């Protein structure tokens, strides 16, 4: 187990290195550079001023020199400074955003896992009942709704119209921090982000559970007189979870995409907003730093997914 994890981590480090090269090259191929983003068309900056700026930012160096300079600093934990906001170290910016995004996505995924698995089981056990049909309609609607549509509808209904929830932000400005305030702001975006995930997990869980419920060992358990609740939760659920774990692991990436929209609509100060803003502003160091952090998170989640297999099914050994 340990040796397997170490090997996966080394592979992950290699992947991060490859990712950084890829992103670096793609950034330089994109039209417009940080100077082009910095310039306001109405304000004159002489060519010498621009050359000075370019030199200060290191953009006048050959590309390999720029990349190696970045890599050298990155290996010591220094991801550089935001070009748009030069008083903000990239590492500080990114770290201040990881928490909010992890909180948002973590809450959404937790909601989705609990709700998706529960409703998936209900749908399977009560196959073709009204409950099953209702949940199926919800699932199709949820899968079909883009996150930003759910977000906008939810925002205007619950915040602007009924005034039950804050319209955005992570905390109420001007107040002392409190967990209650944070949760109050978190409920709406997390729930809406969870909608599509819940629907997806529900469908997978239902299909997987149906397959498992028809297996011989389930029939044997029932024949032994095991209480139906335990038949479902102890014998059937554990096996039915395997494909759902894979699904959950692979949808982390999708959740990041959805988080960008949710963060934009709800003004949630997470990684998604940081990335979008950095791309619009061609803030190279922030894009590089953010991408590395997101890439690292995805790699770690995939490793954890593999390890989770071994926990759920002892027959699967890793290493």
């Amino acid at each position, binding site marked *: 187990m340990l040796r397997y994890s170490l090997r996966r981590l080394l592979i992950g480090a290699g992947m991060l290195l490859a990712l950084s090269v890829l992103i670096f090259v793609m950034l330089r191929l994109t039209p417009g550079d940080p100077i082009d983003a910095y310039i306001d068309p109405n304000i004159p900056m002489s060519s010498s001023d621009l050359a000075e700026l370019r030199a200060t930012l290191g953009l006048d160096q050959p590309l390999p020199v720029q990349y190696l300079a970045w890599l050298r600093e990155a290996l010591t934990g220094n991801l550089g400074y935001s070009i748009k906001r030069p008083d903000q170290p990239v590492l500080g910016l990114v770290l201040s955003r990881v928490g909010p995004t992890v909180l948002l996505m973590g809450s959404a995924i937790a909601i989705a896992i609990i709700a998706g698995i529960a409703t998936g089981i209900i749908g399977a056990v009560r196959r073709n009942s009204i409950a099953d049909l209702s949940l199926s309609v919800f699932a199709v609607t949820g899968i079909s709704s883009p996150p930003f549509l759910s977000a906008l509808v939810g925002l205007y209904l619950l915040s602007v119209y009924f005034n039950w*929830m804050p319209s955005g932000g992570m905390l109420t400005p001007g107040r002392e921090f409190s967990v209650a305030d944070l949760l109050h702001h978190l409920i709406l975006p997390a729930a809406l982000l969870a909608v599509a995930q819940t629907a997806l997990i529900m469908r997978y869980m239902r299909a997987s559970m149906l397959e498992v419920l028809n297996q011989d060992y389930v029939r044997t358990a029932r024949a032994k007189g095991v209480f139906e609740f335990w038949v479902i939760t102890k014998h059937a659920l554990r096996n039915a979870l395997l494909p759902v774990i894979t699904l959950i692991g692979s949808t982390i990436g999708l959740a990041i995409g959805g988080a960008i929209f949710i963060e934009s609509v709800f003004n949630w100060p997470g990684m998604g907003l940081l990335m979008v803003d950095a791309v619009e502003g061609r803030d190279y160091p922030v894009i590089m730093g953010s991408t590395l952090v997101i890439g690292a998170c995805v790699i770690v989640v995939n490793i954890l997914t593999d390890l989770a297999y071994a926990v759920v099914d002892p027959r699967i050994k890793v290493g």
Partner: protein
Amino acid sequence: MKRLQRLSSAIALAAMMATTAGPAFTGPAQAATLSGGFDVGPGGFQGNFNPLAATGGFTWLSIYFEPLVAYDEKLEKVVGQLASSYEVSSDQLTYTFKLADAKWHDGKPFTAKDAKFTIELAKNAKTGSVLAARLNAVSSVEAEDDKTLVIKLSAPSASLMDALTKVMMLPEHALSQIPADQLAKNTWWSTSPIGTGPFKFSKYVTDQYVELVANTDYRGGKPALEKIINRYFANPAAAIAALRAGEIQFTYVDSNDLNAFNNNQDFRVIEGNSFVVNYLGFNHDSPIWKDVRVRQAVMHAINRDAIIQSLYGGAAKAANCAYIADQVVPKGIENYVYDPEKAKQLLKEADWDEINGNKPITLLTYYTTPLAANVMAAVQAMLAQVGINVTPRAVDTPTYNSIVLNPTPDVAQFQMVYAGLQNGPDPGSINVGLNEKQIPPAGPNVARVRMPVLTAALDAALGETDAAKRDARYQEVCEVMNKELPWGPLWVAKRYGVASSKLKDFVWTPAPGGGPYQAHPEKWTIAD
């Protein structure tokens, strides 16, 4: 027993959920605290705390920093702020400022040495200052005594006062130890900046909000509000949602979002000039625009009034040169009324079929809003009616800049642009977009306008030393533009802010870059 534990956990969770609902029923704004989206919209610059690097965001920066001089609240003239008075010599080469009795937020006195220090920082491109080029004419800055500052110019500059409105005074005692090229990277700006304004910096919660607290020693009187909060928003829509939900009391609003606020007693709509003239730029490096009759045809082909009424909801005014302000628009200029038949006739006279015929012309813009997309579609349809085949292309600002500011551009990528140029409050603002000496890489004359008669008129206006004659000089600029059509002027749109009705004595105007102008934040109050 396990079931009982689960039940009690569920009850605890429900109780927590119930308590979190509490805050929703109390007023989101605390007593004497104003929250707003002060950096929302084209005049904002979220996340920037350095006035030297600011290309916008002065609405917020000028609540805690102050310049020597600023525009009045109607943006009609430049008045003293940290300078209680100023004099200009008859040859327009010596500016003398008498400074007000002001204090920095840390209690130290504001002196002429601080002003000298600040202006020298602003002139130094190494600091990251975006004002260096605009202060080129300044040859020396001297602190004659603690309250007297003398600025000398190497040549008269009619735009100097406008440039000085954007130079926020910085404390020498706090910043002089930092090397110029390290200044921009210093965390002082976002952690403990020191200004002279009616409010002082309290805290910045990264990318969420900035909080200022009242400066009770302010020379203009103790502020009525205890706190002002600048909430950060990803886009105007998020700010509008917060305003409608009652969480903030002010934000910039796009003109097509005004419907929710007109005729609503809970809100006050504030209208102002954008000071940006939208135009169709003819790339002068492309031979197809050489004949003035072709340019005239473009003007006659476009129904500006229809676009203004249907797409802008009337919130724009047609322009026939770079200006619409009465004092700089002479009487008797051509109005270029919508007349597609005349446009066709002009094209025929110019032999358009030989010049270009039906070949597609790329119309490039950096405006990516739905409104701009509709404008581009309308312009495309109107030009097509008279035989000019235009292909709109909207890109983001960095891509646009990389194309149009390229010293050796691919002309085919932007034979035409739809863009905006600041035309006031200082009428000299247009110089950067039209003067031949401002063609990239020297400046942002992106249309590569090479008209000696226009350049001469601009130079004459900028060099005019008699203030009484300056308007007439700019009228000449307008006349030349109207006659020669270096580009096709379209309109100047209005911009809007919406404030809660609870907000009293609140002053806001959509100034270019957000200001600075005299908003008197110390007088703002909020009723419960």
